[in-house]
């Protein structure tokens, strides 16, 4: 009994990530004392809020055994849609509302098609990715849509001296944690990802679960889009491009296997923090940004190898 318990702690991806973050922090603090200031940590959170919120949605999608790679395009579409409304003179609140609606609709459409036609989500969202990017191009005519200084509070303002995106970031992860741990829907998401057939035969409406997952993903994507739009003050069709892959990377680092069925809010949260930390640390150590991509790649590779160690040992 003891052996089993112990092994599960060390096999735990979150534990390993925590260790990695602690070691990186220790080393960096040794070279640059500025690292361990509250301000620096708040910066890390603030800078990674958008990625974090998108990764929260990706966590749900990937635990259910699916992908959504249309997210980057959808961020481009929903931000440009909202921004273009503002340019045309709509009140900010109306524009933001429609921006959110577009993100949710886009993801919901992904979910409905994937659930009803039982098509592989990777390919289907590859298709809609192109479609949503096209929408963004049409909406903007290829031009930058500037808000002209409106709608800056959400992304750039502070409350009690703390940047507003941080509240959204942390709030989203609290929600995700509660959803996955304490709700029936959360349980079913794991079951559908772990074994869809077994879940179906146990009376789980697997189509409904999948659609729900994409709907929630849409809500997260919408929120991330609006935070991003507010922070940037303008939008382009390419706003958010590549975000979906960074989010998938964070989720994988956080311990969700590509086949789904496992993962946690804490895991992805640490995954996002780790990715943010790498940029931050390399900046503080005065290492060129070019190396950051390489570092992130290496971390992803290590994370996957570590999570596979258990399987390798079984031989």
């Amino acid at each position, binding site marked *: 009994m003891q052996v089993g318990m112990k092994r599960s702690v060390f096999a735990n991806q979150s534990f390993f990530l925590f260790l990695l973050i602690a070691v990186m922090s220790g080393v960096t603090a040794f070279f640059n004392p500025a690292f361990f200031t509250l301000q620096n940590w708040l910066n890390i959170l603030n800078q990674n809020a958008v990625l974090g919120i998108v990764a929260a949605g990706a966590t749900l999608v990937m635990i259910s055994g699916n992908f959504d790679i249309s997210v980057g395009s959808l961020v481009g579409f929903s931000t440009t849609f909202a921004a273009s409304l503002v340019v045309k003179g709509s009140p900010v609140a109306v524009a933001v509302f429609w921006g959110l609606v577009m993100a949710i609709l886009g993801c919901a459409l992904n979910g409905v098609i994937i659930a009803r036609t039982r098509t592989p989500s990777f390919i289907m969202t590859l298709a809609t990715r192109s479609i949503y990017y096209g929408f963004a191009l049409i909406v903007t005519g290829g031009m930058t849509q500037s808000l002209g200084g409106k709608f800056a509070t959400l992304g750039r303002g502070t409350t009690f001296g703390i940047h507003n995106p941080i509240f959204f970031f942390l709030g989203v992860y609290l929600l995700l944690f509660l959803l996955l741990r304490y709700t029936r829907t959360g349980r079913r998401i794991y079951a559908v990802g772990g074994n869809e057939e*077994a879940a179906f035969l*146990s009376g789980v409406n697997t189509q409904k679960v999948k659609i729900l997952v994409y709907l929630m993903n849409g809500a997260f994507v919408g929120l991330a889009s609006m935070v991003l739009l507010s922070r940037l003050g303008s939008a382009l069709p390419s706003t958010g491009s590549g975000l979906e892959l960074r989010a998938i990377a964070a989720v994988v680092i956080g311990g969700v296997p590509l086949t789904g069925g496992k993962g946690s809010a804490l895991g992805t949260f640490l995954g996002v923090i780790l990715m943010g930390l790498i940029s931050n640390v390399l900046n503080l150590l005065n290492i060129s940004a070019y190396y950051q991509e390489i570092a992130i790649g290496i971390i992803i590779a290590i994370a996957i190898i570590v999570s596979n160690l258990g399987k390798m040992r079984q031989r």
Partner: protein
Amino acid sequence: MAEEVLLEVEGLSKGFPGVQALKKVDFSLRSGEIHCLVGENGAGKSTFIKILSGALVPDEGVIRIFGRSYASLTPSLAIELGIQTVYQESILVSTLSVAENIFLGQERLTTHGLFHRVKTLEDARQLIASFGISLDPEELVENLSHAERQIVGILKALSREAKILILDEPTASLSAVEKKTLFEILRKITRQGVGVIYISHHLEEVFEIGNRITVLKDGAKVATHEVQAVSQELLIQEMVGRPAELFYTREKLHSSEMHHGVLEVVNLRGGVVKEASFQVHAGEIFGIGGMVGSGRTELVRLLFGLDKREGGKIVLEGQDVTPRSPLDAIAKGICLITEDRQKTGLVLVRSVKENITLASLNLGPGEILNLRREREVVRELVAKLRIVTPHIEQEVVNLSGGNQQKVVLAKWLLTNGKVYIFDEPTRGIDVGAKEEIYRLMMELVRAGKFVIMVSSDMPELIALSDRVGVMCNGRMVQILEGEAITEEKILACALGMVG
């Protein structure tokens, strides 16, 4: 020639963290013999054959093959030496044809080094014909039945000039007729001098086909017997380590204990199932027999609302409960314990706890889970069913087959259904766990549930069922009762020989 020793193993040991899977096992295989390996799950059979096929490296011991000694093998060395292993789930590429699968890795090539389609087909056809089987070499493997795949797996092994053939539970999903074909193939190749190591849970088979029998228990060898010199009772005693009944003998309920409800299946049709009508009384086990492909599994799928129904209805205690979907079936009190627990019964990567409560999530009041209550309920069931697991958060994938099956059962017990349908309830489960599953089925009977059981295991079907409905070509052709439930009668009905 006949007495030449192909393989000799001495003092083979292998340990995993926490378990000593093999303890100083000695074993030998002669040319032309079928040497059966029996033992409960976890006795070390799989570890043993994995070492022989080169998939595992032993900690200790010597493997002598054709007189040469090896400390360990690799998969490629094993194949080179003529050792071929066919696993329970044969490893085939489902999108390739039968012929392409057989010659995968030893492709027939043209003089230009390209794939020789014609020769591949021809060689495959020849191989198939040489064993007197009918199988289309051009058919894609994904269109084959489980049994046919098994045969392709064996052909693939034989095409490599196997000198030592290892079969792991080859008959797990074969019907009586297919089993006969397999045995004929085995007899034929042993006459050519091939040695066969045959692993099975079915003792009748072992006695029918084997020359020698080795019993493993907890990783150690108990004994090796000549087949003529041993009885089933002794083998079971050695496997279990205690005297056991030959078959499970179940108590029948006294009429005073009988319950009165009736489950009626009326003219049920759909897909392969052309017509099935029968009644099940509360507190009895209704067995369903028949060949693989006769529509048994399809019938229970209809009962559970899985496949499209073309007609008929299911009436439970006067109420129409014909289900439209599994969800609907569960709500109406119908449970299906599927044939393949790993593929369709369990979410292997999730915990014992989550698997047990999965089907009952609908039955609670709302969206928010009561985790404390859940833990209590699960602990109760784990204790009641004697599920062996370090803790309830353990992933089900780490449990033994018997314990996995108990988790499936616990899941359905928790839904508190009225009708329990078992499809092959003890497939691939060891003797000890089997008895426990039977005990639980009896508890359901005593509680007045309606129990329906599909089984290919004749002794099981005969010993457990109050009545047996036999399927043949999609129809329930006969319902046998009492003394009439014999292997001969069931087989006769299943083969369509009813007057």
